[in-house]
């Protein structure tokens, strides 16, 4: 065996080794699935975030929302949003006992949009995706803005003559927004 043949054999062996390693390694991609079209994404991407991302065009007034609520919501949530426990939660009630944010001390205090929810946009997002109970996802964007306006006004968060659209909804600050804190539990010996 000449040195040249020996070295080309070694090279071939090295190439084979690299190739077989690459075969066992995780490839960058498996080439599975297909591209999602913008239309497909738009059809499912209905989430709205507190910074306004995802809020659609449209608008609705408190008065329009109040009328819609009587038509589509009050049979479960009550005429004044008092709810029917435990299946249909109370929606309205801003510190009914003047209790502040004392939920940890008294399990009987009912959580409502007005006394607990930290973000106004959440009302829009949830009503849009999940309500009404008998026909989830059936409301138009204008109807969802109107119902959001009604619920926020009933909780004395916005004025009774307000109209909401994406810009005004993002500006609504919920009364107890600043009470929500990050999880500080880290395991170990300290009980939190």
């Amino acid at each position, binding site marked *: 065996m000449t040195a040249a043949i020996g070295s080309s054999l070694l090279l071939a062996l090295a190439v084979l080794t690299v190739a077989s390693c690459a075969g066992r390694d995780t490839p960058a991609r498996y080439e599975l*699935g297909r*591209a999602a079209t913008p239309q497909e994404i738009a059809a499912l991407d209905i989430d709205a975030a507190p910074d306004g991302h995802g809020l659609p065009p449209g608008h609705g007034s408190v008065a329009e929302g109040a009328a819609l609520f009587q038509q589509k919501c009050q049979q479960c949530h009550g005429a004044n949003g008092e709810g029917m426990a435990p299946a249909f939660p109370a929606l309205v009630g801003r510190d009914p006992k003047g209790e502040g944010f004392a939920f940890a001390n008294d399990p009987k205090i009912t959580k409502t949009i007005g006394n607990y929810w930290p973000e106004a946009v959440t009302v829009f997002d949830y009503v849009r995706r999940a309500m009404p109970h008998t026909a989830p996802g059936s409301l138009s964007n204008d109807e969802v803005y109107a119902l959001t306006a009604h619920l926020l006004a009933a909780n004395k968060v916005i004025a009774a003559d307000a109209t909401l659209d994406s810009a005004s909804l993002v500006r609504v600050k919920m009364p107890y927004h600043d009470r929500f804190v990050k999880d500080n539990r880290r395991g170990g010996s300290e009980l*939190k």
Partner: protein
Amino acid sequence: MKRRDLLAGAAGLIGGAVLAGAPNAAAGQQRVPSSTPPVLPPPIPDDPTKLQGAPTSQVGTRSTFVTPTRTPYGEVTGSSLTPLQDLTGTITPADLHFERHHAGVPRIDPAKHTLMIHGLVKRPLVFSVADVQRFPQVTRTYFVECSGNGRAAYRDPKPDMTPQKVAGLTGNSEWTGVPLRVLLAEAGVEASASWFLAEGGDACVMTRSIPLEKAMDDALVVWAQNGEPLRPEQGFPLRLLLPGWEGNTNVKWLRRLELGTRPWATRWETSKYTDPLPDGTARQYSFEMDAKSIITSPAFPRTIVKGWWPVTGLAWSGRGAIRRVEVSTDNGRSWADAELHGTPLAKAHVRFTHQWKWDGTESVLLSRATDDTGYVQPTRAALIKVRGLGTDFHFNQIVGWRVAADGHLFFHGES
């Protein structure tokens, strides 16, 4: 009347009750008529060696003498609890694994179901269920626990609570699926992404925001549980599995993952699944389940006699593996290390046993878990001090069973 006839009659009654109950259980769902009439259990002979047994069957059934059941409550939006007192080992049979859902169990055709990944990715993708199943798969054992598990026993412990009532919103299974980071790599995660939204295909289109670190760590997209496809109640055909994190984040009927730069503040992570604290704040995005244990046998409503008993139960932690379980038979005055069955797996139930000789005096049995971060399961009083009685989720207080002098056991939740 002979004993044989009595037993046959009882078996017939059980069978009849099951049949009578079936249409109610299926109410509101489309019922497919069965082509073969249900077969009643055969009579039970005095001597089973003198009679040919039952033929083979397509699907096995439990003995008619063994009837573990979940305890469903709530209509549509409800829960059903795992009968912990009826189970041994650590794997929860899939049909007894607890259920919790907020808009009922959807019926989904797996041939039509898709999983979309979009947002801050280089290539937005749609996967069929078959696509997902072609990625490299892993099988791992993890518990799932609803973060409301134990609320009733924490707020208002009562002597007539069973293990199922006290802690039945947990189950432990062998899950098969693909690591989420593999699916995300296929779509190409943008450097700016730090959170993702997971969305389910049920009637409330359930959504939770999850830090991207969890996807890169141990998150899975699973399609099988304990060797068979997921059951509808557990998310068929696809569910997110976030080991050690509160049950609600393990989004079932998973249909969409959107990558972004901040959480979405969905209803479930704001008005629900947040923890009010005595200082007037509420802890949000509190994902990890704290270390916990419960003696599942003996327990209410059983009665024991003097002599040796295995005091056995389950322990788990959302932060890692259980390092130690201690059992007390004297209401916490002294503790002994229980035997752990096998090497505890991270974020999975481990079975423990402490062999105990009851001498006929009133006793209180307690268990206390320690995980591998050094976290020790707290007493109820200690937990109330830091969380308040009205806090809403994450209950892992020490619980146990009082043994009365006559051998009756009662829930003991006040330690």
